[in-house]
């Protein structure tokens, strides 16, 4: 697996994407739930992007040394 991760993801890039995602996860989760609700009311299949049950799977925030 590690052998095939052939591009350098960049330490700073790995870190900042986790920070950005942490900041944005609450509004994203809210939007996703609203969209699902609207889709359900309209009888459409959900167009929400990620099928995660709750943001609890993101309980670990990024940390610095």
């Amino acid at each position, binding site marked *: 697996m590690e052998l095939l991760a052939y*591009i350098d993801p960049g330490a700073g890039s790995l870190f*900042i994407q*986790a920070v950005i*995602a942490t900041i944005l996860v609450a509004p994203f*989760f809210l939007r996703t739930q609203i969209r699902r609700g609207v889709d359900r009311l309209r009888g459409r299949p959900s167009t929400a992007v990620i099928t995660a049950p709750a943001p609890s*799977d*993101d309980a670990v925030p990024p940390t610095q040394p």
Partner: protein
Amino acid sequence: MTDSPRPSGAAGERDPGSFRDPSGFVFRRDGVLYRQVNRVFADDWGAAVDAGILQRWQADGRLVSHEVVDVALAADPGQALAVLRPDPIAFISYPYEWTFGQLKDAALLTLDLQEDAERSGFTLRDASAYNVQFDRGRPILIDTLSLERRTGDEPWAAYRQFCQHFVAPLALMARRDIRCGLMLRDYVDGIPIDLAATLLPGRTRLSTGLGSHVHLHARAQRRYADAARGAPRRAAMGATRRGALLDSLRRTIMGLHWSPGGTEWADYDRETSYTDQGTRAKESIVEAMLQDTGGSAVWDLGANVGRFSAIAANLGRRVVAWDVDPAASERHYQRLKARGVTAVLPLVQDLVNPSPGLGWAGAERAPFVDRSDADVVMALALVHHLAISNNVPLDWVAALFARLAPAGLVEFVPKGDPMVILLLGSRPDVFPDYTQDGFERAFSTRFRIVARTPIPDSTRVLYRLERA
């Protein structure tokens, strides 16, 4: 295709742009393009095949189709797990030749695929703009080996590459200057984030998307650039946070707009010196000459918004429509997209300084002049711009056209034409050979003049040429 390094004991000619990924590579044998899948990639390849994700993407046209062929065809049999024969892409273009809209559509395709991969338990291992090509009017992923299984809650390894290849250039094109797209020529792995942060207007710091994915990203890269300061501890990113990141990238890309206009050629199509009758006559002559010339592929040089490319397309030709002006090419792309035209590929190209060979040994990305598969080169209302605006000798223009295609449709615009008068209005006329006789003399060194037809209601002449 140029000479390239070959692995020891290999057969087949390895593509000079396919060497970074240990999971496989592209090669040619007897002129046919193949992709070797290496044994080291067996588990991920098997999982992707079993999950049906490749087949799904191929069925909806988002991934190039392939046929699995005999592994004995491998270029490096010692490492080969499988050999694929991808469907050929009609013409290989590069991100620095794409219009703003094309680069944006390629970015959105990459995000679509990453979101879909996430839902299926996979991830894109890379997010290079060079993994995308335009095929029949649509962006399509050509790197069949981009997919690998997710093994945990890691961040997206290709995030930095996505930002360098798509976010940074699109932001610079939209928020600074459309010509910043050409910076992709200098930076083959995308525009460095810190450079983009420096060049973008200060107000972009206040934007959620660009503030995060460019400005904060650049600061984080600086913070951790020095290994002595230590890397951050590995951060887990669960599905919702990964979804939030992709959603943010999508919103950032969707929020970048550029409206063509204000460039030199943006309104050229409406400002030509032709009367309506002259335009119709020219269209009829071009159509007749294209019919007489035959062939299946046309390169339309100086295509502007594609009035004459459309004639070639209507005759069943596949057209690559080049223009120096990003506004004209963008308009052309958006028109084609709106009308569902798939036979024409508009691209940006400065003929006076065309795309060179780039990347390792100057061979990863082929130069403009080596990529022509055209049967006909069409240069309408172009030669005077090359000869007078750029001082290119007419016989040099003929030499380039002869290198690009065995036949040509070329328009000569004499000095009495309003456009040439305009070009000479601000400079001395140092072009004594720029006459119809001089044009015919110059082009006769490379071509046989098959037909010359004056265009009614103008002083211009259309030539049909065959390479001598």
